[in-house]
């Protein structure tokens, strides 16, 4: 099961061999995208559904004066909007943050998959609902949580999401984000992000070096950011990650 979409969907339902093969067959159109390059830009024709196979990417919007808001992250296995081909043009951009591999699933193939495989269809609905749940949580994040809470919450979420596709190493995962990108995600100034990361490091809750996030104390990080993984709906996922490497602060 090398396709990360299959790993992701397995958190919701057990897919048959046939369904797995059908998905793998639809992901043959693969393109390499360099770091900080757009996969597709605002205003482009929508075309097929993009699937991140490898790397790390984001969905973002820019204001005319250049200010940018990152509104979602994509980890491997994430679809960049299952139904996007219904629309004519992109109202936002998808950009790779790390060098990435992106598959394009032609609209016809998406429709065919959904026509032929009901379990798979429900699994794809599930992934769409989870994306929407994440988007809701991000609104709560920038609307209500303070800088420390929202940063901690984002890191918890990313660990769980990498873990759901088997791409974590214990309480650690790749996270090649600059502080400016974090600021654009969290709705904070870069100075504020820097201060907040310092504080999280100082309290021995995380390290973030060389594009790698390591959570040193997940329990405290979850508690102080009011993180509850229920919104990720990992119904069949493995148990809660534990502070195995390091108990306590």
């Amino acid at each position, binding site marked *: 099961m090398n396709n990360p979409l299959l790993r992701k969907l397995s958190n919701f339902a057990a897919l048959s061999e046939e369904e797995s093969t059908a998905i793998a067959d639809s992901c043959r159109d693969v393109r390499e995208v360099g770091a900080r390059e757009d996969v597709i830009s605002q205003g482009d024709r929508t075309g097929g559904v993009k699937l991140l196979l490898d790397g790390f990417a984001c969905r973002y919007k820019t204001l005319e004066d250049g200010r940018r808001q990152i509104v979602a992250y994509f980890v491997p296995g994430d679809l960049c909007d299952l139904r996007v081909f219904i629309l004519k043009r992109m109202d936002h951009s998808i950009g790779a943050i790390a060098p990435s591999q992106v598959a394009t699933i032609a609209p016809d193939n998406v429709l065919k998959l959904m026509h032929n495989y009901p379990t798979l269809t429900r699994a794809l609905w599930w992934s769409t609902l989870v994306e929407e749940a994440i988007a809701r949580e991000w609104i709560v994040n920038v609307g209500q949580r303070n800088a420390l809470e929202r940063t901690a919450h984002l890191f918890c979420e990313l660990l769980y999401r990498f873990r759901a596709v088997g791409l974590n190493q214990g309480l650690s995962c790749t996270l090649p984000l600059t502080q400016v990108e974090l600021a654009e995600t969290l709705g904070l*100034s870069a100075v504020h992000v820097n201060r907040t990361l310092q504080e999280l490091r100082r309290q021995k809750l995380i390290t973030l070096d060389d594009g790698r996030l390591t959570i040193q104390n997940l329990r405290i990080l979850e508690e*102080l950011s009011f993180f509850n993984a229920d919104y990720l709906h990992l119904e069949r996922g493995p148990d809660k990650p534990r502070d195995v490497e390091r108990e306590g602060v």
Partner: protein
Amino acid sequence: MDSSEFGQVSALNRRICRTLSMLRLVAAHVGARGGSSNESRHLAGRIGAIGRAILVTGFFDGVDLESLVLDELRLHAAGPAQFSISGPEVRLASDAADLMSLVIHELATNAVKYGALSQSRAKISVGWALVHRFGRQILQFEWLETGVQIMARAPPTPGFGSELIQRLIARELKGEGKMTLLADGVRCAIAFPFESGDAAP
């Protein structure tokens, strides 16, 4: 922090959260009844300011003063060009953190209503220093708004903010606080004996 310590702090935090949530209910009720009254509009914000300081103190070794200031300015949508912050790393013990969080909230709210955050050319500089005086460490904190066009609608009577700054700083922190109206802004100076929240030896 071991497992039982974590459990204790976590239980206490849950209790604080329940209390804050009840207070917010009360505030919402007062807001619904009191309609547009000034005080009812401020209540929820004040509860938020107290909550921000109180929840981290259990897990952390003191509250980072700069983070308190930054969070409060962010909440009032202050752009990076509207303020500057300077001061050494200061970790407030919980008593000072609760009160300073509220003080900074009042100052920022005031700036939105009458001061530097209501006008495009005005600026806020927030600064602090630790000085030794009579064998004790004193935290000197200053909130300075300049370039403000003083409007006639500035508050005629001392409000909750200045009362907080003058009376509570003296009573709770054994220090002094003073608000001064300037020709082009306002200056708030606070000083109190400093005890680091950093419990680590």
